[in-house]
């Protein structure tokens, strides 16, 4: 199946998660009205600079052991973490979400200037929006799968975590054709703009 592109993912701003990422704890953290206003304003400004886009692609699993997963074609993920996540699945969903380059330029600009708060809030907003973008893609694919009597697992796993090496970002990049979303990749396998995330999730068969 070819990659499916989502050119404008529209989601509510995950404010609770943004505040949490910044260290806010319900019923413990106290924040003055003026500071709250300032942060809310930065969140608004950040959201205006984010263009959330994404891609997804389902690929059948050719062979799987406890230590590796071979996808149809020539891709092999040598990772016990990924093998555990994809256990029992007949396909894997590869997905990516990106916030675009405008927000990253702003984060860099403010991190270098004296407004680190703004940079930090922008960074938190972009991170959470990208993550929420993957949630949205999973909900979309799950809805499609349910019509085919299939089922998408709830968990997902990203390159760079556990034993799922960042080197696989290169395969994710190619298979999802992320160039189409304006995303690039460095020789160290980091996606550019940085607020871009990829993940794999299991697609289970629901009929024998």
């Amino acid at each position: 199946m070819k990659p499916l592109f989502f050119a404008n993912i529209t989601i509510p701003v995950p404010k609770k998660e943004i505040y949490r990422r910044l260290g806010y704890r319900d019923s413990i953290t106290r924040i003055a009205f003026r500071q709250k206003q300032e942060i809310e304003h930065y969140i608004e400004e950040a959201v205006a600079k984010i263009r959330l886009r994404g891609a997804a692609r389902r690929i059948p699993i050719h062979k799987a052991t406890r230590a590796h997963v071979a996808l149809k074609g020539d891709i092999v993920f040598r990772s016990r973490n990924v093998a555990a996540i994809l256990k029992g699945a007949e396909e894997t969903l590869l997905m990516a979400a990106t916030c675009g380059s405008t927000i990253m330029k702003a984060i860099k600009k403010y991190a270098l200037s004296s407004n680190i708060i703004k940079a930090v809030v922008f960074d938190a907003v972009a991170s959470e929006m990208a993550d929420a973008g993957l949630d949205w893609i999973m909900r979309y694919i799950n809805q499609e799968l349910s019509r085919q009597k299939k089922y998408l697992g709830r968990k997902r796993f990203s390159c760079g975590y556990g034993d799922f090496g960042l080197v696989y970002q290169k395969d994710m990049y190619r298979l999802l054709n992320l160039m189409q979303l304006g995303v690039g990749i460095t020789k160290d396998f980091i996606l550019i703009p940085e607020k871009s995330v990829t993940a794999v999730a299991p697609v289970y068969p629901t009929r024998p």
Partner: protein
Amino acid sequence: MKTKEKIIATLQKRIIVLDGATGTELSRRGMPQGIMPEAWVLKNPDVLKAIHAEYRYAGADIVYACTFGANRIKLAEYGIRNVGETNRKLLLLAKEAVDTRALVAGDIGPTGSFVRPFGKLEFEKAVAVFKEQIRGLCAGGADLLVIETMMDIQEARAALIAAKETTGMFVMVTMTFDQGGRTLFGTDPLSALIALQGLGADAVGVNCSTGPEGMRAIIKSIKPFATVPLVAKPNAGIPRLVGKKTVFVTGPEAFAKEAKRLITVGVNILGGCCGTTPRHIQLLKDAVATMRPQAVMRKSIGALSSARRTVIIDAQKPPLIIGEKINPTGKKGLQQELLDGNFSLLRGLAIEQEAHKPVLLDVNVGVPRIDEKKAIQGAIEALAGTVVLPLVIDSANPSAIEAALRLYPGRALINSISAEKEKLRLLPVARKYGAMCILLPLSGKGIPSSLSERKRIIRKVFHEAKRYGFTKEDIIVDGLVMSMASNPEFASLALKTVEWVSNVFGAHTVIGLSNVSFGLPNRQMINAAFLAMALRAGLTFAIADPLVVALLRKKTIQKIVSKKTADPKKLLDLFAGQSRKEIKPLKKIARIEEKIYQAVLEGNRDSIDKLLKEGLGKGLGAYRIIEELMIPAIMRVGELFDKKIYFLPQLIAGAESVKKAFGYLKPYIKKSFIKDKQKNLILMASVKGDIHDIGKNIVILILESNGFKVIDLGKDVSAQKIVAAALRYRPDVVGLSALMTTTMVRMKEVIALARKKRLTTKFIVGGAVVSAPYARSIGAEYAKNATDAVRIMKRLHKA
């Protein structure tokens, strides 16, 4: 009688029953997984015809042809190119199966590609894809069309426009909502209804995703606002995973029982989706046979929608504010951005206004030499994903308005239509796209200066509008407010216009609020008083800056409205009094020392310089300010952060205040003092391969605000560079930061190289993936966050 009229007539008398699932039935009867049903049934026509016939015998009045995915985009995935012929053949199979005893609907499903502004597929391309399919369905003899299982309101609109521009058939549109009651793009059932019925759907409703019980609340919530019959085609319950099988849990008896309850909340057309069988439809038919349908409750509705929100005008308490700020007049930056095809400022203005709770946003992109058609479409796309508020399309250019309406994913308001011929030509366009209109009492012969003249123009334009099916609910009359500076009588005339339209003509009204005070002093006061008077005259909407109106406070305005005085001067005085009361005096902090301490605690960077100036002026002395106020305050901020009473932005704000204060106080401090007080020197770097440096920058800021000297080597720094710098500066500590597991290993390389070069400097490491055991394993101290780094540095300093 034509089929469309027959369907409409039948709907007056009884419930129309649709068929059940085709896909799950095909699977049950041997269709393999992972193939395209449309292709398989063409090779196995008898299986499909049997399903259609069974639904017909079960009592379905309408069966759906197996053309759900038979559009160019889906068919191409399976190498099928002849779209028209495929649709025609599939339609004919259904016709052969049911003979003339049931109607056959040409079934149009999603393309799987998302339509702009939510996806990449150009709107006009989507329309063309659906038109191609519809032509094939018409060639096969479809009796009606059904657009179903739509998740993207824009794709549903494209299909509906294609249907309306190709044929005069009865068209039903059903969307699918998740369990939260919205589509994945956030469209709620009411917004879908308002957009689709406005665009000319003959019936609107819901299918798939949920069982009949899950659809009841949706139908009940939208029925009062529907101007068309409602459709429900639920699944046989919510599918559940039993072992590795998806099981639809609602059997035919329970389905029929629940379906009856759907009729009681207002469904007019009812069938089954995934998991339903001919038996479900048979029992459903029996259950609803004697039930009378609930009639459509209204002919028209004053409502506006975006893809994600609907504003029902009568359900809101005036004044309903229309945000006016997306207008390039007098805004050079916005003008340039629009000319460049950039919409960042425009999105910023929309978000800023939305925070102050207007109900609609006015969008005007009129700049000299701009391609306004392209610009307004760009603005609509930019705003669709940014704000939830419905938009007002504000342009003097009729073709720009038409382009905007075609693309806008909801029911828009046009600003404006007047009695000029060119403007009247917009009426059929507005009707086609279901838009509401602001009716401006202008005829091209200057500003009408009497109420009678205004009444005449309003009646004339409305008379024209009625010819296209508009009602008074579909229009909003502009009071035509002009500046009191040019002619004070115009303000009074606008109020009289609003009063007459509200109380006699019987339509909603709008005013451009800030026009009244243009060129005058005390504009806010004049605006507030005028708004209060207009509200008393019956005003519904005001086009204004939402921030300013929020400042005026609705309560204050309401108080003024309730005063029984018609004297504008008294109202102005009254408002002046109210506005003074609104300004609350700041809590006084008696001592400057407390103020400075508090400014750090609250991260008040803007006022710190002023406070320091005051403190120095009162003889506090720079040394005392630093030692007795700044340092204790930033330490307190650190404590509050450790206890989670403060969170990260507050910690940084405190540190930035101190940093700014140090900068201000520097000229007042002797160098020797700085040297004495300067604690250890730290060299900081993000290791090679790690381009993330926000965390490291925060640590640097907090360390500096606590009096440590820091040399920042930046990000993505090699082990060789770090060790070379350490040899050169001889710091007391080297701090290393890494965000990823892949770059964390570089920390070990740095320390190993340093030891090889006989450097005994201590290392502190930190970052999202770094842990205390890892730090120990490479011979470093571990700092879990910035305040922890300060603590470690102080410990090392004492040692």
